[in-house]
């Protein structure tokens, strides 16, 4: 169930239910507040289409689409 963050359109969002994978990127994302139960909202894509900018815990964060794919939202 749930969709990956990459599939979401700008100006939409959802609650994070899981972050897949392991390693540095996952650790970093979690340290930055991308953890289970948190609301995440897609602000926009970069002019060239990648990376994306999201709003999480009241601030703006940018990440690449391939990493957004690991974030499952409700």
């Amino acid at each position, binding site marked *: 169930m749930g969709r990956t963050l990459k599939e979401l359109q700008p100006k939409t969002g959802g609650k994070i239910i899981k972050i897949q994978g*392991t390693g540095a990127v996952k650790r970093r994302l979690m340290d930055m507040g991308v953890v289970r*139960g948190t609301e995440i909202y897609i602000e926009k894509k970069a002019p060239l289409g990648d*990376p994306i900018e999201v709003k999480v815990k009241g601030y703006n964060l940018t990440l690449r689409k391939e990493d957004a794919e690991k974030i499952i939202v409700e």
Partner: protein
Amino acid sequence: MLRNITIALAGNPNSGKTTLFNAFTGARHSVGNWPGVTVEKKEGKLHHKNNEMIAVDLPGTYSLSPYSLEEKISRKYIVDESPDVVVNIVDASNIERNLYLSMQLIELGKPVVIALNMLDVAQRRGHKIDHEKLSKLLGVPVVPIIATQKKGIEKLLDTALEVAHGKIKYNPNQVDYGKDVEKKIKETIEMLKGHVDISKFNLRWLALKVIEEDEEILNELNLTPQVENDEIAVTDEFSLEDDYESLVAGRRYTYITSIISKTVKKPKDEGLNTSDKIDKVLTNKWLGLPIFAGLMYIVFWFTFNIGNIFLDQIDGWFGTFGETVGASLEGAVAPWLQSLIVDGIIGGVGGVLTFVPNIVFLFIAISILEDSGYMARVAFIMDRAMRKIGLSGKAFIPMLMGFGCSVPAVMGTRTLENENDRLASILVVPFMSCGARAPIYILFAGVFFPGYESIVTFSLYVLGIVVAIMCALIFKKTLFKGEQSPFVMEIPPYKFPTLGGTGIAVWEKAKGYILRAGTIIFAASVLIWFILGFNFSGQVEMVDSIGASIGKIAAPIFRPLGFGSWQAALSLITGLMAKEVVVSSMAVIYGLGEAVGEAAMEGDVLGFAGALKTAGFTSLSALSFMVFSLLYIPCLAVIGVIKRETNSWKWTGFSVGYTFVVAWVVSFLVYQVGGLLGF
């Protein structure tokens, strides 16, 4: 107590740490590198109520997990060096994420004071923070401050002193990680007790690090990951399976959220803040790129047009200074000493110092873009394009700066936190054709490609970019392969850069350039002066000098490239000092005198043309020579700064070696293929 009190400043990037540090110490601080690494180390003394204290500005960090080199340094410092008090600066307008680091610091069991910064920003957004209650819930002192207005600094220092002296009894509260994780923590603590020397660590923190599979800690303790892929069933509100690492991070945030809900009141709908509004334009799908290009153009215009006004001035001063000193030394000292001082030292060091205005203006521009928060947007806009060549979006700015001068460009790679990205960028930046190469193009293109000067020059700039891209690709596939650096970056809100902050940042960088590059140039100037005027029997004409001998030895190397005379070889060697020297030293070496050299640099090439043609240059070998000049070893100032920024002779040597090889191969291809094609 006679001992100095050490205050470590820890906090997230963009939390105002540097502003607070500057408020503490002013410009009276020293900047160096942390031992063994290239990350900046800032330290400054300050006095407060008869106490002498040392403030240490730790690199900005989001957590105490080792992710980047900087975070390793911050953690290592706090854990191993045990500062008397850790001042944790927290951005009040972004409190939730900022408290994540605070929780880790508290877990570590070190004396912590929280400096709750940017209250003005938070208030403007309508956030109300009960800092007293926050202090009670966290169990550590919380001092509200506004670092940019120097508000609350006294109180903060008072509190830090009291904590350092043990006068404030505080009882930090621990995160409750839930039954399952707490059980695991207990087990791990038991396991650790029997195993390792744990005296310097806080046991609970250590256990958490082991559970989080913190590689450095596991290595240090010589443990194997015990909990690897240890999935467990969780009975909390999510009723989902997850690994311990995620559980620890998740519950730490859950704990923070519960504290926030009791202490911070936010308006229900914040709407668009000013930053979002600005970003609607600046990172707009259609406008983002053109605005970015325009801003870059302004930066360059500012740096070179305004900088050059001063450049000519300084150049003039050094000329006059050299003449005056030369005249006053005439007869007073031996001619060789006069020549060393005037031609060697004043000429050489002056040549580097003339670039100081450009460097200062470039850094003013860059510093403003950085402090305003626009640089993060540049990385955001350019990441996709830069990724195609294996670099991060953050590497774009240094590459662009390379068109001006590689020295600030190499220094600019500091914004890259990934060490491999940074090295790859440092290695390819010198291929971006810097301003000092222009005189060479002007001269040779003017003599050998009349009417086509601009197209030849333009092609050389393009060639530099192509070579840089190709080398970056090769490096990423060979030397720096392995895991792709994550691009997970905060986009900070826009803010107005402060005059003081920009001033201090620019001063630090200019000082570094003048001092360090200056000392290396000084030594090199003396050396080059010496080899052009002496051989082992004493002072001689240039033809018999060590330099000429070196030129003769080196010449065969260049023969396959089309320019095998010792004069050409020697001028390339002297060009290592600064690439514009190639032209002026050619004039001197070919016996045309200084005047012709200067005329040539200014585009009057008639006198030079004959000499170059008699010296054996053809259109093809001239092209080959220009290509070689573009690509070969960067000048000494750049080599110096590469050494400083990589902190490694190995990489400096590699940079010198491989650029020479690349230049040789490309020039060889130009000359030989051109020859086959009948040019």
